[in-house]
């Protein structure tokens, strides 16, 4: 039931809608509850022969009037109540989305896409149910029971009420026991289905092995075993589920039996009229819905509460990097990096230490090192994905922390390792950062990235749809589009995070040459596994196990006869082998 308290803010926000909906329920209930009474009155007037054509017509009109009124009111409350709960769902979706846009990349490492999607879909639905159907079952169920019981007891006959209601506690008990058994068997069935899924997944993923070993029949047998278990679990659920109908039928039937027997006797003794007995029987029917509603309500409330907690937890996560800076622009793109030591949050291992270098404006810095040497960490710090107490990075003499985050982002254009393309046209993807860019500028950026020719060779050229529902591009093509995207921003600092790994050396050199021509006066940082990408850099930083091991220009590093030189020779040999020599 906590979910209703948790949603208090929303009920307050939409109090008008909820108040209207509740009033409408009450009206509908009152009107509907009058029907059995009217029926009873008609029957009694027939029995006592007091019916006149006039009164009959009167009753007729009344009934038609009630029918139409109830129809309209029902339509109205549905619109009112569900507009409120649907709106809540959208509101939560929008809040969630907004929150996500403010989270740093570290957040998305911790919360996987699948998990986030589940919260955004299933959990929001569950909360919406609580705010809509939940409120409905709670209040309508309550109102109905109160009205019906009041009428049965006070207007008709309390003794009869008591007698007829005897089986109802038993029905409630049935609901509870069947319900919990169902819950368990349902969970079992879900698990078996999961198993089935996993098994099929494994078989299909391992289809080569199945074929090469000729294991088709064996796989069939194993699959059938699991399919059989799933069928059994389903039978279990069905067995329990099929108990509901008979259970209700029997208890309601007993209730009717008692009602008719006792009622019939009371009619005979004159304590009750036949009309009232008929009304009573009709009212008895109205009591069944609240019983269902109650069980359903428990279910909705429980799920809604759990879902709400999961969503709130997500919304409460704060960004690891506070945006408290005030500086809004970068004057000169020179970078100074001084890292005494840096550890990722919640880890003990030191990721970077003893790094000290300056990159004057307009120069190119190359960063190389073996896997795990700290290249990506260095970039994370430069992009301010994390802050470190013993790290000091400044651009144009101003600490990163003193810049507004948006200003920092405007100052740096980054081509990340995995070139992610959105489901949109190539032009839209390149213009991601500048949605209003002209096609001429887009093409210029694409040309520098050496992808313009490729794009023009596609049938729809720049209007080609890419991404999940579009054309699949090669790794190299995606990277070049990502480079064009960053270039279009024309930011003072350009960072390439292993962004040329999927293109061949020839294309790589061409792109780098274009970059050098196009970006005079601007700073560039190139991180790469391939040394050819940094050969022409003004400064090369060699990272080893998190610290600065060699620095200098290419020539100097070759002469230094260290790790850099050995790797360079290795990569040259590798290239020879790759080209078949």
């Amino acid at each position, binding site marked *: 039931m906590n979910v209703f308290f948790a949603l208090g803010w929303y009920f307050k926000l939409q109090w008008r809608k909820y108040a209207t909906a509740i009033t409408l329920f009450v009206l509908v209930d009152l009107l509907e509850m009058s029907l059995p009474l009217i029926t009873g009155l008609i029957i009694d007037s027939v029995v006592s022969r007091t019916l006149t054509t006039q009164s009959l017509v009167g009753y007729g009109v009344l009934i038609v009037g009630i029918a139409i009124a109830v*129809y309209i009111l029902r339509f109205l409350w549905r619109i009112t109540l569900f507009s409120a709960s649907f709106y809540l769902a959208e509101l939560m979706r*929008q809040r969630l989305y907004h929150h996500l*846009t403010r989270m740093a990349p570290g957040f998305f490492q911790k919360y996987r896409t699948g998990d986030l999607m589940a919260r955004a879909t299933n959990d929001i639905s569950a909360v919406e149910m609580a705010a809509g159907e939940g409120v409905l079952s709670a209040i309508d169920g309550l109102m109905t029971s109160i009205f019906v019981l009041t009428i049965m007891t006070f207007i008709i006959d309390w003794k009869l009420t008591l007698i007829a209601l005897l089986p109802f506690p038993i029905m409630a008990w049935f609901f509870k026991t069947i319900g919990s058994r169902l819950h368990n068997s349902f969970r079992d069935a879900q698990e078996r289905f999961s198993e089935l899924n996993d098994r*099929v997944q494994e078989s299909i993923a391992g289809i080569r092995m*199945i074929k090469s070993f000729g294991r088709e029949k064996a796989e069939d047998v194993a699959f059938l075993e699991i399919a059989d278990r799933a069928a059994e679990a389903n039978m279990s659920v*069905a067995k329990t589920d099929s108990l509901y109908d008979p259970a209700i039928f029997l208890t309601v039937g007993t209730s009717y*039996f008692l009602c008719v027997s006792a009622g019939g006797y009371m009619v005979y003794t004159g304590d009750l009229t036949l009309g009232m007995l008929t009304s009573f029987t009709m009212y008895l029917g109205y009591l069944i819905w609240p019983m269902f509603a109650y069980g359903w309500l428990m279910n909705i409330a429980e799920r809604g509460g759990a879902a709400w907690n999961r969503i709130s937890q997500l919304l409460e996560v704060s960004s690891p990097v506070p945006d408290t800076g005030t500086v809004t622009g970068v004057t000169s793109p020179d970078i100074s990096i001084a890292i005494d030591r840096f550890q990722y949050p919640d880890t003990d291992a030191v990721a970077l230490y003893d790094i000290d270098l300056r990159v004057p404006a307009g120069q190119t810095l190359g960063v190389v090192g073996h896997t795990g040497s700290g290249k990506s960490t260095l970039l994370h710090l430069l992009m301010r994905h994390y802050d470190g107490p013993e790290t000091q990075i400044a651009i144009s003499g101003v600490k990163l922390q003193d810049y507004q985050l948006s200003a920092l982002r*405007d100052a740096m254009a980054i081509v990340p390792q995995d070139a992610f393309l959105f489901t949109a046209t190539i032009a839209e993807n390149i213009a991601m950062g500048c949605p209003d860019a002209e096609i001429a500028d887009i093409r210029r950026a694409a040309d520098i990235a050496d992808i313009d020719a490729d794009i023009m060779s596609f049938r729809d050229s720049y209007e080609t749809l890419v991404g999940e529902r579009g054309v699949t591009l090669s790794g190299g093509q995606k990277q070049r589009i990502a480079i064009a995207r960053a270039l279009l921003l024309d930011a003072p600092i350009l960072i390439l995070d292993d962004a040329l790994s999927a293109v061949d050396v020839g294309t790589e050199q061409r792109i780098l040459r274009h970059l050098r021509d196009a970006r005079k006066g601007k700073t560039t940082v190139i991180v790469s596994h391939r040394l050819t990408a940094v050969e022409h850099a003004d400064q090369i930083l060699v990272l080893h196990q998190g610290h600065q091991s060699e620095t200098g220009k290419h020539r100097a590093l070759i002469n230094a006869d260290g790790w850099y030189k050995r790797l360079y020779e290795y990569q040259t040999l590798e290239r020879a082998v790759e080209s*078949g020599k």
Partner: protein
Amino acid sequence: MNQENEVPKKLNFQVLMRLLAYTRAYPKLLLQGGVLLLLSTFAEVSAPILVKTFLDDYVMPGYFPTSDLALLAGLYIVLHLLSALTGYMKSMRFNRVAFSIVRTIRAQVFATVTRKSLDYFDHRPTGSLVSRITNDTEAIKELFVQVLPVFIQNIVLIIGIFIAMAYLDWRLMLVCLFFLPTVTGVMVLYQRLSTPRFHRARSVLSRINASLNESIQGMKIIQLMNQQKRFNQDFTGTSMDHYAARMANVRMDGMLLRPMVDLLKILTLGGLLMYFGWSSLNGVVEIGVMYAFINYLTRVTEPVVEMTQRLSLLQQAIVAGDRVFTILDDGVETIEKPRASLSHGEIFFDHVSFSYDGKKDVLSNIHHRIRPGQFHAVVGHTGSGKSTLMSLLLRFYAPRRGNVMIDNTPVQYIEANSLRKGVGIVQQDPFIFAGSVRENICLGDDYSQAQIEAAAKQANIHDFITTLPEGYDTWMSERGANLSTGQRQLLTLARTLVHEPKVLILDEATANIDSETEAVIQKALNALRGKITIFAIAHRLSTIQDADEIVVLHQGQIVQKGDHRSLMADEGLYRHMYELQQRSDDFDALEVSAT
């Protein structure tokens, strides 16, 4: 992916009929279920008639003979119990049929999919295939569990109620008859109007989820490009679209679904009461009949609503059925009429060329012979076509030009069982499952202990197994955690050797092997040469140094051939590859040592 959301406007009756045809296999159960259903309905529908009798014949006249009443009461109770019991038994029968049918369909689809040719899998993401076999069959299950029984039961119930009504008073029954066609008409109208709205809401939801998913994955870029505001606005727009679509649904439901059905019910009630009142003004009427009719009326609305609500499940089941039948109808991999079986194990690639997409050749003019018992190896950089050679040998694909022959017969013409048994493959990261050593070697096939031990000895692992606590019956944990990597590799070698292949393919997928495994494989290969034809696809040149002949591939073509010594003497690709691997080892050692 779009396919998942498209639902045709009309019901595909052909698919429905085909799905229903599966019930033909269970005539007894269906007959029993049918009989039980009729009994249950009869009992349920007769109860109000008893009440009518009670009221009209005993209460109204004020006449209470205990024996008659006891009989009446007893009958009432018996009918109720009968209805509940037969109802339950009927449900069980129908459910059993439903689950058996689903199991049959699942088995069929699974067996068909696993026997399709390999290129079927190349163009279909695993996820969508799994979905067909699991989720789609689940939707079909709903047809048999939720839709069919509900429709049958409710239709029988409604017919039963009207028969009972007619028995009591056919004129009053006619008054109620107004209700039935009207409500059916409304339901049909509802279905027609609500389906497009329903699908619109679902497709907007799809869009929201796709957009959310993509944004989560590309959030880094969105933030780097400072585009949060724009994306937020777009998302809000789509979200409000969704709201509008759902409200359209609710309005439709509010107008035509339950409220409308209730309206009709109340009007019918009014009609009944009017007729009743009017007849009473002109003559005598039986109150009990009125009572019974009111009772019946309350029972007739719910079944109608239930059926309408099941219609969307029906549609989904049909769409799923269509997809499943497409898979079944497309059939399995057909293999040419097999003529021969494998005997010596001589491999001959006769000017073989192959391409996956029909445009770019992955293998060009491969011409090479391996005599029985020889140990040949194929090496090359990533993308040179090495694994494709193996796929062709295993008959996963057919060459575009040329022939892959074993014992002078193209593999297309070798009988399937003979090929699977005759060509054994040892993969690098093998799957050891939770089972005994014996089970892991036999993989479910029948082999004698002698055969198993012979294979283990050939693989150089028999001695080790005998040192295990329960020998061949020792339980292996999943992924073989209680063995070293080298031992795992030998175990899978035994697994392949147990079916006495004439050809052994060693598939070395990556260059990441520890030296123990490398040594172990080398030793085993050396022991096997001369007895089996060995074809090793190697990444690590050191593993195959002892091969009789090494074929060097580059971009699908053979560029060098010879044994290790002669290839090293040439200043060519092989020698450079060898040097490269040496240096790579040096680098790895350097990193490790600097820690």
